[in-house]
């Protein structure tokens, strides 16, 4: 079956692909002049071929009669080819991802290159020439920017800046070292006669060294994403690869200028100019990026009325920062990198959560899309007889030097860095860093724009670059994972977001700065603190919306996020069951206990739930675990909800909440533009969420504090049980009786509900920690809605009805009634609950 599917896909791929080939050949037949140019450009993305097309496409022909339909290929030629190629490349990715046993061994980037070989072979077979190539212009203007923007926007900010020193040293000094040594060593070998007779001078060798020394972020991301190394190592490799692209381009330009000047004209003044221009270009580009970051952040302060396109601003301005830098001949890559890194914090705070998600996903789609295309085209470009000039000595020596000098450089620089690092980079990490020096499309792009007039051996260099790229991406890519495992490189540890962690982080920072003050030295913490102070006082004032400023505190942010998460779980669980029954049974405070429960006592929860089902208590025998695993109802007519399944938890938390909890209110307002919790427009809503979750969560504490210990015991029991396996206690349906005294904590209304045995058991089984129900808010909140549920379809809108009632009405009888009816009807229709009610 799986094979069939793969086969079908491959077939589809071939069909799409052959269409584009066919199209190309059609084009060859008809447009003789512009053939090479237009088809090349169409291979990647839109360029200015429109002039070409318009003349051909609109060629006026004498018609004798009115045609009903006409064949207008030339109208759509370029965009059509572009679209087809994009589709082809993406289908390639799909094919690669079909079989996970392959991708677990073989990095995807390598597979894509190989598929590119096949496609290139087909094109070659059909056209007898390589009509599709990765054109440097397209690569640098249409494929690269979004990848860099995405990478820098998603960069772990704090980690990046705290390791910026090391990253910069590796990016600047390391790259210069690589460029210089590779160039000189190759030249020395050439002089020594290792590569026969070539028409290359020392400057050309240096130029080649410069272009080959760029560690490629695209390749690095693609490979390192799959290996999950520890975060410091990741940021070092990744940050370096991002920044050194900029450096490489600058170096390349300097050497290119030297080559054009020619050997004799280069004197000390020119060299100094070259060095100055290096720094001006690199730092100027970075500075321009920061300027754009400030612009973007300020712009997002005022975009709340055009929320729909809010995310677009970032992309356009990011792209503009790239182009502007290019225009000023500053480093475009550095510009867009710093733009993304610097603005992320502020725009995330300023923009609506939805826009942030949109931006993140749009960037991801664009970046992954173009990454795929780059790899495929790296493969396709290779199948071209014209570029291959084979020189064994040159090629092998290049590979050798590239690898060797990378290792030497990394080890040496790390040795220097380790002298002053608090946490030294250990030797395995250094090894992986050196080994992770993958070359990629940037090097190819730079090689492809070499001027053949100035560098006669351009094709040799291009071919060698391709081979180095293949060598590093495919060979090193494949071996990276086993190597990381074999060296036992520290892997990334995923830690949950906890308030304790956040709070203590802050405390630690304060302690450390204090200690540095006492020791009387200006350490790293001194800088951090002064930057924070400055940021608080001026930067945030300038770049953040006033209400966003309020929420910027990380401790508060974590708190807010956790609350939202809880509230979301609370709602989804209820939805899952198709009733609001959960509000009574799952006191919202239970949610985080359950999180712990699931982690610590995961082994017994199934027992509980399994036994529960025997005693069929109605709706509630939906296993707790499954509720937790799948936070979104399995049956839902809301399409968007399904889309969100794959989102990270925190995002989906915000979204589900926005979708469900207060949607109705929002819909009532004439605009839909604001989310509900962080706006000044509806502070009461925010207050409401806050109070609601907090009150319910705090209730168990208060009661526990009042000296009613059973609640405490309840939570402890499962833990004890977990050691000597359920002895029937947690599973026993009557197990609540020992804790019967928890009834004390129910106020009159909730106590009446607890008389319904089923509910009672359920509550205590599912949520031992929260067995103490809260007498205040939530119980009464359910009542009207449950009744309403009988009549109205269950939608989040109903929640609106409860809002006003929640505080005032305490209709206990309806509560019981609704509950009883629910218990009767629910078990049978459980799976379809949503369906029917929606």
């Amino acid at each position: 079956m799986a094979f069939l599917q793969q086969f079908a896909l491959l077939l589809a791929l071939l069909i799409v692909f052959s269409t584009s080939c066919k199209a190309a050949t059609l084009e060859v037949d008809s447009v003789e002049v512009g053939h090479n140019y237009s088809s090349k450009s169409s291979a990647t993305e839109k360029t200015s071929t429109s002039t070409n097309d318009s003349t051909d496409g609109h060629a006026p022909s004498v018609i004798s009669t009115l045609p009903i339909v006409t064949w207008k290929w030339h109208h759509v030629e370029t965009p059509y080819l572009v679209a087809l190629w994009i589709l082809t490349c993406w289908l390639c990715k799909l094919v690669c991802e079909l079989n996970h046993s392959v991708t677990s061994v073989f990095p995807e980037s390598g597979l894509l290159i190989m598929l590119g070989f096949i496609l290139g072979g087909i094109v070659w077979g059909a056209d007898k020439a390589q009509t599709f190539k990765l054109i440097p212009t397209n690569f640098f203007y249409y494929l690269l920017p979004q990848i860099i923007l995405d990478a820098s926007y998603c960069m772990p900010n704090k980690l990046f800046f705290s390791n910026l020193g090391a990253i910069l040293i590796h990016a600047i000094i390391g790259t210069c070292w690589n460029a210089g040594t590779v160039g000189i060593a190759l030249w020395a070998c050439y002089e020594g006669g290792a590569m026969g007779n070539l028409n290359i001078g020392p400057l050309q060798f240096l130029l080649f060294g410069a272009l080959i020394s760029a560690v490629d972020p695209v390749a690095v991301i693609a490979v390192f994403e799959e290996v999950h190394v520890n975060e410091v190592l990741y940021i070092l490799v990744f940050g370096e690869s991002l920044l050194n692209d900029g450096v490489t381009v600058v170096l390349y330009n300097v050497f290119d200028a030297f080559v054009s000047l020619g050997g004799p004209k280069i004197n000390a003044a020119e060299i100094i100019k070259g060095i100055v221009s290096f720094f001006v270009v690199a730092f100027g580009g970075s500075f321009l990026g920061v300027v754009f970051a400030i612009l973007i952040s300020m712009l997002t302060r005022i975009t709340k009325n055009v929320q729909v396109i809010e995310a677009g601003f970032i992309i356009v301005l990011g792209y503009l920062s790239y182009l502007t830098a290019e225009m000023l001949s500053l480093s475009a890559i550095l510009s867009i990198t710093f733009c993304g890194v610097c603005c992320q914090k502020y725009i995330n705070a300023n923009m609506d959560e939805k826009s942030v998600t949109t931006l993140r996903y749009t960037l991801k789609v664009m970046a992954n899309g173009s990454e795929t295309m780059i790899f495929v085209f790296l493969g396709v470009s290779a199948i071209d007889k014209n570029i291959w000039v084979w020189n064994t000595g040159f090629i092998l020596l290049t590979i050798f030097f590239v690898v060797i000098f990378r290792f030497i450089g990394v080890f040496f620089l790390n040795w220097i860095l380790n002298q002053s690092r608090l946490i030294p980079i250990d030797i395995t990490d250094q090894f992986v860093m050196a080994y992770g020096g993958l070359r990629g499309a940037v090097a190819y792009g730079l090689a492809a724009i070499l001027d053949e007039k100035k560098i006669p051996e351009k094709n040799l260099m291009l071919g060698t670059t391709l081979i180095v790229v293949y060598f590093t991406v495919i060979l090193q890519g494949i071996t990276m994972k086993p190597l990381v495992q074999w060296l036992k490189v520290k892997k990334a540890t995923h830690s949950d977001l906890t308030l304790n962690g956040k709070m203590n982080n802050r405390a630690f920072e304060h302690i450390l700065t204090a200690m540095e003050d006492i020791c009387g030295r200006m350490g790293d913490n001194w800088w951090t603190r002064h930057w924070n102070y400055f940021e608080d006082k001026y930067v945030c004032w300038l770049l953040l919306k006033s209400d966003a400023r309020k929420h910027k505190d990380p401790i508060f942010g974590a708190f807010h996020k956790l609350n939202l998460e809880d509230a979301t779980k609370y709602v989804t669980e209820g939805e899952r069951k198709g009733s609001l029954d959960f509000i009574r049974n799952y006191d919202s405070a239970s949610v985080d206990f359950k999180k712990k429960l699931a982690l610590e006592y995961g082994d017994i929860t199934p027992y509980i739930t399994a036994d529960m089902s025997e005693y069929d208590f109605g709706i509630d025998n939906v296993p707790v675990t499954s509720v937790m695993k799948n936070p979104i109802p399995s049956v839902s007519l809301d399409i968007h909800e399904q889309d969100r399944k794959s989102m990270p938890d925190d995002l989906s938390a915000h979204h589900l909440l926005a979708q469900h909890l207060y949607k109705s209110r929002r819909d009532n307002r004439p605009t839909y533009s604001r989310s509900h919790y962080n706006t000044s427009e509806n502070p009461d809503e925010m207050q409401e969420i806050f109070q609601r979750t907090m009150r319910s969560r705090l209730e168990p504490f208060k009661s526990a504090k009042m000296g009613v210990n059973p609640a405490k015991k309840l939570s402890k029991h499962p833990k004890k049980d977990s050691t000597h396996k359920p002895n029937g206690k947690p599973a026993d349906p009557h197990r609540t009786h020992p804790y019967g005294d928890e009834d004390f904590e129910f106020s009159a209304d909730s106590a009446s509900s607890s008389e319904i045995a089923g509910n009672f058991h359920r509550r205590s089984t599912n949520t031992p920690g929260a067995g103490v129900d809260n007498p205040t808010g939530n119980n009464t909140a359910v009542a009207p809605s449950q009744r309403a549920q009988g009549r109205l379809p269950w939608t989040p809108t109903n929640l609106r009805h409860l809002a006003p009632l929640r505080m005032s009405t305490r209709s206990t009888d309806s509560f019981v009634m609704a509950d009883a009816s629910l218990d009767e009807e629910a078990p049978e229709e459980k799976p379809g609950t949503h369906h029917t009610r929606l």
Partner: protein
Amino acid sequence: MGSTNSTLLKIPNVEVLMQETGFSPAHIIRLHDRFKALDKEGRGHLCPQDFGAIKELAMNPIGDRIIGAFFSPGKEMVDFHTFVKILAHFRPVDKDRPKEPNSPELINSRSNKLKFAFQLYDQDKDGKISRDELLKVLRAMLGMQVTEEQLESIADRTIQEADLDRDDAISFEEFRKSLEKVNIDHKMSIRFLR
């Protein structure tokens, strides 16, 4: 080297101190200079006012507590040995040092680092961070943007997160557990100049 030795000789029991804290002679000398600089009146010990004179420390929201950590209860002064020992908590853990199985726990061990942080919260020294104690620290650290109610709920939630035995307070054991995944060695170390 001669001057190094002469400075070292002035400090009584310097060998023991180095043994206990793991500081190198260069560290000790630098710290001793600093100690003397802080001790403006040359009494040979520091009192809270001396710490208070450090300008930056006054800006630190939990600066008082940190100063307090240098003084054992009831005492109003701290001598050089104690001073160095407190600072030794923040020495990075050295991996090269062979770990002798029966050697006493180093001052800069993980749990000692944590203990230091813990006692900053636990001002009444009852071995537990109560809600009030936590609230005070939070109030100091969170600043003005957060309202009192929010502060309280944050405190409650924080306790709830860490509180395993449901006594509405965080014991050291719970504190340690809640930070299990945090790399304390990284987060509670500073570089000491040689």
